[in-house]
């Protein structure tokens, strides 16, 4: 093993380095200096994100347990951006008195989870995949329950850890069956034929990943956990955790499970329809914005499946591109929600009545985010969604496409409800003028820029398409 080979793991190394720095800082800094951790962590995370983009070699090491290729690197980079934005958005919350002495741990857990994400994406062996998955989940479960004196937070933590334990047990059972059928756990050379037992194994395995992506009917934990968790954690769950699972699902389906493509197509066909529809139907009736965004993100997951179902280069590219835009859009929305929540504690849509009058910039950002999620041009979401539709149309699944586009109409309805609250409804006591901190503003600026620029700047998608031609 050479240095160069080790450098293939630079995403993980840098993150591990960050974790170490955090531990050192925690030990080295006095309590009064703890508030500097955010800025250090953010800056480091920013540099890690940038470093991630530096072109480098790729290949596989550890006998194939760890694999990188340009697509995986891109995926990691996208999720790093998401994590960076979440870092920035967490400051307001962490500055609260109740979070005193717990700032470093927060970042440490988040970074650990991020390391899990990276390993999961780069996994070349099911064990690595499983470890990544658990490393991704366990710290986040702890974070979900991070607000000690908030029973909702504890509830969220319990629901997350127990459901995920249950789902990973099922996933593992499926994996064990697949192992029995193939005798191999390396991705390279993983081959089997479609049979009853492999289908069973696959479904068990799939449900575990579907749980992370919140695909119906494996989604039920989502809303409750999103609502109860601290908003930063919710952001992370809805963006990074979900994005990572989507990526891995796509990679696995497109490579290892290609032999049973007819099987997983049927599965995805059914679950995609269910996911979009159920997500939308529940989102309609939400008042709590975090819950609302939870169901919206379930519906979005359904849309993502449209790209996965494609099973080819176009599908992979559109999935990656969609997640990229979803990172910006969803985090912009969560950023605004977080800002309002931290300064007023208000989370209901009704509370946002007249929001535009008092906080025009925040509400404009929110509108951008929601419109992007709804797929309104010229925002990034429009392109993301349209390309997903392209992917599904390539297969000739026009019925599915029709269901999907009609679902976008429903989704537009509830996104507009929020826009309506902010811009149209009047309020006796609107949310007062809020001044967010510099971190938050930076994060919103990044997200908004992403939302606006991404669509116009086509080379991004063209680049992704080029990478994905291998599928």
């Amino acid at each position, binding site marked *: 093993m050479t240095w160069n080979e080790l450098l293939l793991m630079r995403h993980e190394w840098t993150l591990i380095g960050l974790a170490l720095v955090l531990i050192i800082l925690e030990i080295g800094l006095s309590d009064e200096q703890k508030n500097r951790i955010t800025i250090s962590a953010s800056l480091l995370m920013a540099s890690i994100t940038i470093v991630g983009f530096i072109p480098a070699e790729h290949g596989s090491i550890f006998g194939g347990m760890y694999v990188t290729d340009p697509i995986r690197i891109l995926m990691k980079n996208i999720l790093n951006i998401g994590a960076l934005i979440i870092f920035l958005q967490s400051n307001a919350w962490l500055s609260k008195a109740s979070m005193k002495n717990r700032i470093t741990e927060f970042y440490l857990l988040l970074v650990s989870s991020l390391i899990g994400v990276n390993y999961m994406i780069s996994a070349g062996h099911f064990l690595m995949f*499983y470890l990544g998955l*658990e490393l991704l989940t366990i710290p986040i479960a702890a974070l979900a329950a991070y607000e*000690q004196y908030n029973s909702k937070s*504890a509830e969220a933590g319990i629901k997350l*850890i127990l459901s995920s334990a249950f789902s990973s*047990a*099922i996933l593992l059972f499926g994996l064990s069956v697949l192992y029995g059928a193939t005798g191999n*756990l390396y991705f390279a050379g993983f081959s089997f034929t479609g049979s009853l037992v492999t289908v069973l194994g696959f479904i068990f395995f799939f449900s575990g990943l579907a749980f992370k992506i919140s695909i119906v009917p494996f989604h039920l934990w989502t809303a409750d956990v999103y609502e109860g968790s601290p908003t930063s954690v919710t952001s992370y769950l809805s963006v990074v955790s979900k994005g990572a699972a989507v990526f891995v699902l796509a990679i696995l389906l497109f490579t290892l499970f290609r032999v049973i493509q007819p099987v997983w197509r049927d599965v995805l066909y059914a679950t995609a329809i269910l996911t979009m529809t159920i997500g939308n139907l529940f989102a309609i009736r939400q008042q709590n914005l975090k819950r609302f965004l939870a169901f919206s993100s379930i519906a979005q997951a359904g849309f993502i499946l449209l790209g996965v179902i494609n099973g080819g280069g176009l599908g992979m590219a559109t999935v990656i591109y969609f997640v990229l835009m979803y990172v910006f859009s969803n985090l912009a929305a969560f950023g605004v929600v977080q800002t309002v929540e931290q300064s007023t504690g208000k989370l209901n849509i009704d509370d946002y009545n007249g929001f535009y009058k008092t906080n025009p910039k925040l509400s404009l950002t929110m509108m951008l985010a929601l419109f992007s999620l709804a797929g309104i041009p010229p925002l990034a979401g429009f392109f993301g969604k349209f390309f997903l539709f392209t992917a599904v149309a390539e297969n000739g699944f026009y019925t599915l496409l029709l269901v999907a586009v009609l679902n976008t109409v429903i989704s537009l309805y509830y996104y507009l409800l929020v826009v309506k609250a902010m811009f149209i409804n009047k309020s006796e006591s609107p949310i007062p003028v809020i001044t967010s901190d510099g971190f938050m503003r930076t994060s919103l600026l990044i997200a908004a820029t992403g939302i606006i620029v991404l669509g116009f700047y086509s080379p991004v998608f063209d680049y992704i398409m080029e990478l994905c031609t291998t599928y």
Partner: protein
Amino acid sequence: MIDHVPLTHVLIVSTLMFFIGAYGFLTRKNLVTMLIGVELMLNAVNINFVAFDRYLFPSGIEGHFFSLFIIAIAAAEAAVAIAIFINLYRNIRSIDVEHVDKMKY
């Protein structure tokens, strides 16, 4: 390999155990007992891995290692889960799963 015991029988045991665990997870009211259910499920998976390893792929020990890691992770998971249970208990003085339903619809 256990002489004269067919693989199927081992698999019956593990599958049964898995679903007993699932039953426990789905019916028990106490969070800790739910966790016990999960542990049983994981244990069943381990038996599977070991059985496949021994019966089918004697020259490799991949399943063995997988079981090893599962055990470790189960421990980590249990630790975090219990920490959260305790936290919840502090908050609502109960670890009954049916009380964990403040957020719904």
